[in-house]
């Protein structure tokens, strides 16, 4: 109970700050728009090529936005000298991890929804029939991405060259999640039933469980003084 209340207070605090300042969200929304530009210029107007590349592009966008967003997980704490406060928080610190993770997943899903919308409008793709399957894949993938991302953000928060180190550490670890989500998205967009990619969904779920539990168990060690 206490654990849940502590975690909730972190979520509430983070989302409240974000809702007031909209700092990260605004920047990420603009970034998504820029991504669209880049993809458009890189691929040209060929519709066929775009359709083939869409699942990969979509997840490339999610991951790039994730790298920017997740890397900022502890920026406020660092800039406002609250890092010590986190370290000094009494008792089990995994509640902080859960709170940060939940806030990150929420933020990421909002940004991903926005990217999806932009893709649908600007690239003229009809995503409506695939939406439920897509939502499932996005939730599974985002939880995996955020679970490791939150942990690594704490790890690199107080390290030299953290902007560089964070993606360098996160990207290789995320390979299973990336492969799974891209393959599952591909199948979903082609109108295949979710059962056809059941093994990928299983892999994503297993990855989520492993990452979250590892994060819960090891987060304490990152916040020692």
């Amino acid at each position, binding site marked *: 109970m206490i654990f849940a209340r502590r975690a909730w207070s972190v979520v509430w605090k983070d989302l409240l700050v974000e809702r007031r300042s909209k700092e990260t969200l605004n920047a990420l929304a603009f970034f998504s728009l820029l991504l669209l530009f880049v993809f458009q210029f890189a691929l040209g107007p060929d519709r066929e090529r775009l359709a083939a590349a869409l699942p990969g592009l979509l997840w490339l966008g999610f991951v790039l936005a994730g790298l920017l967003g997740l890397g900022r997980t502890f920026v406020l704490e660092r800039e406002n000298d609250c890092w010590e406060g986190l370290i000094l928080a009494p008792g089990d610190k995994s509640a902080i991890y859960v709170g940060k993770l939940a806030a990150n997943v929420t933020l990421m899903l909002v940004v991903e929804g926005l990217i999806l919308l932009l893709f649908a409008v600007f690239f003229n793709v009809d995503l409506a029939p695939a939406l439920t399957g897509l939502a499932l894949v996005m939730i599974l993938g985002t939880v995996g991405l955020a679970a490791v991302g939150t942990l690594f953000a704490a790890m690199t928060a*107080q390290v030299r060259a953290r902007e560089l180190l964070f993606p360098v550490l996160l990207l290789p670890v995320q390979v299973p999640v990336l492969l799974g989500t891209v393959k599952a998205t591909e199948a979903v967009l082609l109108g295949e039933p979710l059962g056809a990619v059941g093994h990928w969904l299983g892999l994503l779920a297993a990855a989520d469980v492993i990452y979250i539990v590892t994060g819960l168990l090891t987060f304490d060690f990152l916040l020692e003084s």
Partner: protein
Amino acid sequence: MTRVLGWLAALALLAGLGMAFAVAPREATQGTVQRIMYVHVPSVWVAYCAFVVVFVASIAYLATRAEAADRLAHASAEVGVLFTGLTIATGSIWGKPTWGTWWTWDARLTSVAVLFVMYVGYLLLRGMIDEGERAARYAAVLGVVAALNIPLVHFSVLWWRTLHQPPSLMKPGPSSMPPVIVRALLVNFAAFALLYLYFVAKRVRLLRLEGEAGA
């Protein structure tokens, strides 16, 4: 002690060379090129073992905070990265004449490449932190995450695509390799394992000296 290990490793490597070129036969379909296997396969086995050692030593460090465990993890990760790189390079040289390409995104190549970058990241993280205790703590967490990720990488990449032959020694039932080749492989594996132990012992001592010099 370390010196003895070094000489043993050198002798075993010589024996391994003898097995690879004098004892093992020229393979029927691939020809002499198949002899690359005797460096390629043992070095990837040793690399996997090295990363398991990193995992265990990382947990041991988090549990006991013994600096020795941290030094072992650091040394083992470095030597593991060395052997992983060697695996990729020799595999590439083997791939050119047999598959007709230096590199292909097949399952095992890809998962070994992912492993390589994951542990290079581990070494980078260590290099970016100046305080020894914090470097040890963070690296230990990363060592655990990376090791738990290995099975996920393995299966995801396997399902993604594969062109490599299925593992021939690991599969159930009678091995499909003639015993001469298996024996040559095992001798080379033993040699590489000894070399790994020698390198790790030396690197651990070096880390201890560096720690004292920095203190």
